């Protein structure tokens, strides 16, 4: 047992860190935030050149075939740079496609995702705002070779930039995942402006939409797995954001003078910083354990995913709170970058279930199970 990154993993970390600090500066993040989709095609292609759009995609479909620990390593660096756009949406879709798709579908879509030619997202939530796939009510009626769809999906990330939207729907036979291509007739995509402008949210409405293809292979398991992958990625991204906030705050505490001394000499400030470190390092333990457990199909994988998502969701917000507090007035300005991370943390906290949601998942696993 060795709970430390291996040499190749450390090299990957270094190169991701260098890459994102070069390609995704805070100025660039601000520019992208102000665009319609927060997507940067050139940056996306450059990430694809590194192999990262297909990082966990099997080599047979053009990916790097790496594990979730390597994924977490790279996504942590994305989080540190507050990378805008559709990476996690596409990742979720790719993981879902990999589990629920046919060979032909995988060959078509996963290759394109790995090559950076295709961005995707998943439409799961409805007005009930319940992340459990069992809550999906959208009906797909069989129509010819395909399906007819009427209804709407909510809180779909990056829908306007996605070339493909994977839509969870229900047929008389159970859950399926419809493959909705960009610009399909009867599909309307409307932005719902949200706190975080770096990962946009949309309502996707279907009116007599005819959808040809669907993923039908073990959909329930595939959803659970892919949501686990995406939850780990969100947690890793939050971890990177926490690390940035901590580093930035410690640096500030060393240099900002009040009463003739650096504010970092005052214990009230010191203890905030110590707590930020404690939460950041604890998040790190949780993220890498979850990534490992899901990769290795460990019997504790479900526990591990919920532990990571619950802990990081609370910690990222709290680290942000303390970071802003330690900065004083400047921390409350639009000009300072703290709020970019703070808003992303809120978006990541909510997406795929916040701490309350995942604690209830854990309660089912550890309290209810103890009863039977």
């Amino acid at each position, binding site marked *: 047992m060795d709970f430390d990154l291996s040499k190749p993993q450390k090299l990957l970390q270094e190169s991701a860190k260098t890459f994102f600090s070069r390609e995704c500066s805070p100025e660039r993040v601000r520019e992208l935030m102000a665009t319609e989709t927060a997507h940067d095609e050139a940056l996306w292609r450059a990430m694809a050149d590194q192999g990262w759009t297909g990082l966990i995609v099997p080599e047979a479909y053009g990916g790097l075939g790496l594990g979730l620990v390597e994924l977490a390593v790279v996504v942590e660096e994305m989080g540190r740079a507050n990378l805008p756009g559709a990476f996690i949406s596409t990742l979720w879709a790719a993981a879902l496609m990999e589990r629920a798709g046919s060979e032909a579908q995988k060959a078509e879509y996963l290759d394109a995702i790995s090559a950076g030619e295709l961005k995707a997202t998943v439409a799961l939530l409805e007005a009930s705002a319940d992340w459990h796939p069992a809550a999906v009510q959208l009906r797909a009626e069989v129509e010819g070779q395909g399906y007819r769809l009427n209804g709407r999906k909510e809180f779909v990330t990056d829908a306007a930039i996605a070339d493909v939207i994977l839509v969870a729907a229900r047929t008389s036979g159970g859950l399926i995942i419809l493959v909705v291509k960009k610009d399909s007739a009867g599909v309307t995509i409307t932005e719902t402006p949200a706190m975080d402008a770096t990962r946009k949210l949309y309502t996707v409405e279907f009116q007599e939409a005819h959808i040809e293809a669907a993923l039908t292979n073990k959909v329930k398991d595939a959803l659970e797995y892919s949501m686990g992958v995406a939850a780990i990625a969100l947690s890793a991204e939050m971890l990177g954001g926490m690390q940035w906030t901590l580093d930035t705050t410690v640096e500030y505490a060393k240099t900002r003078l009040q009463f003739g001394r650096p504010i970092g000499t005052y214990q009230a400030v*010191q203890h905030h910083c110590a707590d930020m470190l404690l939460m950041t390092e604890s998040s790190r333990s949780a993220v890498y354990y979850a990534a490992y457990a899901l990769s290795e199909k460990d019997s504790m994988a479900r526990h591990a995913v919920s532990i990571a998502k619950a*802990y990081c969701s609370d910690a990222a917000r709290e680290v942000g709170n303390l970071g802003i507090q330690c900065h004083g007035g400047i921390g409350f300005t639009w000009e300072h970058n703290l709020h970019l991370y703070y808003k992303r943390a809120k978006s990541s906290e909510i997406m795929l279930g916040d701490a309350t949601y995942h604690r209830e998942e854990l309660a089912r696993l550890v*309290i209810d199970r103890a009863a039977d």
Partner: protein
Amino acid sequence: MDLNLSPEEEKFRDECRAWLAANVPEPFAGKGLNEEENAEVVDYLKAWQKKVFDGGWAGISWPKAYGGRGAKLIEQAIFQEEWAKADAPMLINVLGLSLIGPTIIAVGTEAQKQRFLPKILSGEEIWCQGFSEPNAGSDVAGLGTKAIRDGDDFIINGQKIWTSLAHVSDWCLLLVRTDFEAPKHKGITALLVDMHSAGVAVRPLRQMTGDSGFNEVFFSNVRVPVANVLGEINKGWHTAIATLMNERANLGAGVYVGIKRALDALIERSHHINRGGRPSAQDPVIRQKIAQAYLELEIFKLNSNRALSKMSKSAVPGPEGSILKIFWSELNQRVQQTAMEALGTYGQLQDFDEGKWVYGYLRSRGNTIEAGTSEIQRNIVAERVLGLPKSYQS
């Protein structure tokens, strides 16, 4: 990163599991496993530690030459985890095992290692830590207990306080002042003191739990051979730091076992205790709090395992140990409060579950004071881990 156990580690785990299954004793009959002043409890725990030692499971990462198993730190962690699962009693010589033994291994002479380490492991000699004084707590380097050289001996006069287990201890790692002119950190010496020496008087102090886990210890003209200096004369601060680092890094391992046991018991109880007319286990707020306790405890274990992986490469525990100390002490307080809430009106009863919830709740208040207060630990994290400027001259 590889969290799988290697084949040898798996074999090791199976061996400990089998040994524990065959050897864990019946729970102590009767009340008061926490009351270490109770002679029967002490005998029960000493017998158990002897059994662990004879089985070859005490001091797993300690050198073989001194009675240890010569295994890796990771194996120590594996053993701890099996220990928790087997619901085995604690080891009474916890201070010897977690902080004083490792300090002797780090700075002791060969003769000291041979003389003291095996009996720490077997529990034949129980140890206490004589650091704190009435006027030197957080600022322990401000201590005033005096040691005057007289030939081959030191003669000790002074007082220690809050000395856990002193009432059952055979030996004490004592910090004394040997140079009165030097700056405070430079005049301290660490001594290995026989608690049965003439002139040592132990007076139990009653804790808020009602029992006597710690004591005042008075030294009047106590003779200690110079051969019992641990480390070097006037360099006792160096020795003390080794002890404190080990205290922060190691105490948590045993703590995980204790909290895990409490949490499992709480989950079991929550199905059978009513709160507001339904089992606690079905109350959504209680479910949230139990789940939070569960996830934090797991993260504490993960943090510990990460620290172990690091320590097995660097060999010495660093100031990051303070993060573990803050984490487990505050976690235990939250867990105990969650237990009180989940148990509702019953938790407060002295006779409910042998009073273990009352005891656990009250005892947890000491966690953020003992082994360095949370404030001191946060100072250490801020200054030595994050590199912020010092807030005071220490």
